[in-house]
């Protein structure tokens, strides 16, 4: 149905522009705040146009962190966040692929039982099981390690379920053809299932990377060493740091930096991401 009424068109565009403005304005303010010095940021009214302190703020944030605070430069935290997000995303994908492979292609007792067992963990995110999980991680001496940051977040029912659905759409004849060609289970997995799930893997990677990057509560709990802090938890800490007025320029610069990796992942993997969520032809 195509409507050709100028009023509707103008109205729709205005409405859409308003939507864009609502989303974009806070990001603009973040950027503006990151370009002024600390003094300007505590004066009223708040600036709406960029200042000239961008590179100074970047240098301070990246290398030194907040003035008078105990935090060090954001570079270390960015690195920690990156490692954690990558470990979570890659780990989740690897584990989910293997468990979906087992559930779809192997016959073993209580197969559906195991599937449901995995599936009900959807109802048990880290926040719900936080005390026992902390206990386990602490007993394994994994506090303040990358393993401790990522392993408890790796098991994923969502991804397992998604790969299961993907595998179920792959025709049985392909498995049979591979068996006749002499491919064992692992070869079939590597040579046929993995390449055929490529787009799904990419789509999940995007989602899971962002999920991992945005983790707040768990890293806050298990990292006591400054060197293991992640950037998302650091933003909050900066607000309370140094018992003085918040240094908005540094905080906003940190926020800006924290946004970059997820945005980069989305931009670079956009095409695969959309394909992975919509493609049905196998």
């Amino acid at each position, binding site marked *: 149905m195509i409507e050709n009424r100028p009023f509707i068109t103008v109205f729709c565009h205005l409405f859409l522009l308003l939507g864009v403005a609502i989303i974009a304005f806070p990001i603009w303010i973040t950027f503006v705040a990151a370009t002024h010095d600390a003094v300007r940021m505590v004066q009223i009214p708040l600036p709406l146009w960029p200042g000239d302190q961008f590179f100074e703020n970047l240098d301070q944030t990246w290398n030194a962190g907040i003035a008078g605070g105990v935090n060090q430069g954001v570079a270390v935290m960015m690195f920690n966040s990156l490692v954690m997000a990558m470990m979570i995303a890659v780990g989740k994908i690897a584990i989910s692929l293997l468990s979906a492979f087992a559930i779809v292609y192997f016959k073993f007792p209580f197969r559906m039982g195991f599937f449901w067992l995995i599936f009900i963990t959807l109802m048990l995110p880290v926040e719900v099981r936080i005390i026992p999980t902390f206990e386990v991680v602490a007993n394994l001496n994994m506090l303040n390690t990358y393993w401790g940051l990522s392993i408890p977040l790796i098991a994923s029912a969502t991804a397992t379920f998604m790969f299961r659905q993907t595998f179920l759409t792959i025709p049985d*004849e392909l498995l*049979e053809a591979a*068996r006749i*060609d*002499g*491919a064992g289970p692992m070869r079939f997995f590597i040579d046929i299932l993995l*390449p055929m799930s490529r787009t799904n893997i990419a789509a999940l990677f995007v989602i899971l990377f962002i999920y991992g990057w945005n983790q707040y509560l768990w890293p806050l709990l298990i990292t006591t060493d400054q060197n293991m802090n992640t950037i998302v938890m650091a933003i909050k800490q900066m607000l309370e740091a140094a018992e003085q007025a918040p240094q908005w320029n540094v905080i906003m610069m940190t926020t800006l930096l924290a946004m970059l990796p997820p945005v980069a992942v989305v931009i670079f993997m956009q095409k695969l991401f959309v394909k992975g969520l919509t493609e049905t032809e*196998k």
Partner: protein
Amino acid sequence: MAQVRLDNLKKTYPNGFKAIHGVDVDIQDGEFLVLVGPSGCGKSTLLRMIAGLESISEGVLTIGERQVNDLEPADRDIAMVFQNYALYPHMSVFDNMAYGLKIRGIDKSEIRERVKKAADILELTDEQLSRKPRQLSGGQRQRVAMGRAIVREPSVFLFDEPLSNLDAKLRVQMRIEIRQLQERLGITSVYVTHDQVEAMTLGHRLVVLNEGRVEQLGTPIELYERPASLFVAGFIGSPAMNFATAQINGQGTAVALPGGAEFTLAEGVYPSHADRTVTLGIRPEDLTLSEKAQDNCVLTASLVEHLGADTLVHGHFGTDQTDMTVRLSGIRRVEKAQQLPLEILPEKLHLFDPESEKRLA
């Protein structure tokens, strides 16, 4: 190249369902055997048992000299062509054909040589070899699937309804190609289809399966001329054979329909069946227009179908209401309700026991 022996093969599923009730077939070296039957008759199951994709519950399967009951599909020296081609969608045509060889650890130059050879046989160009399967048409995909089977140089080819996804015209063309290919390579082949025309044209011998049992095993002509049971008689031939309940006379020399039509039987074949009620089978194409003015075999036409090469006349004999189809060659001007005097050679009549449904004599 090898013989394949099916010795009392049985298949029972874990839920107790018996899919195959003991099949014995000796497939000769280089033979093209077709398994044919309606859907659900177990023909695909039987093929998959030969391939090793279904386990064998009972019986012995030998390929060549080896008993292969417990071997993996890859170790049985077979190649299979699937109905939906089952090509690996992410691999090029070349890689699809080469995959099995790669796994077997054959070196690259030989793989290239074998794939090239198969591609030549199937008339696939180099440009097509580098494409992905989804960029090919149905017929080309089917060729690639056959190419994948050929490069393995197996002793047995297994075809699982390979032509059913193609359109009618292409099907006829590929049918001929498969036949030529099999003759040229001389590889023992087992072919599953539900299409009796495909079965008749392709197979050296046919196995007609019904509910997991072999109804008849024979050459296409044997099956056509001497169907062993009502099932085979009705399955082979198109349009299907006419059936009617009839009575043999006291001398065993003629058979009569309740409506009065009477047919002379072949001499000296049925004396022992005198006075019996039988199921009479007549192929539509065996009835011909009679020159003689006779009154005991006259069809009253009720519907006429013009096919061009043939004319199909539906009608009934006398007062008997059983619908009969007659196939007259060429274009015949037949009116509705017209009386057609017909005749048939005595040896073209098929008599079956109404209870056991088996052929008499």
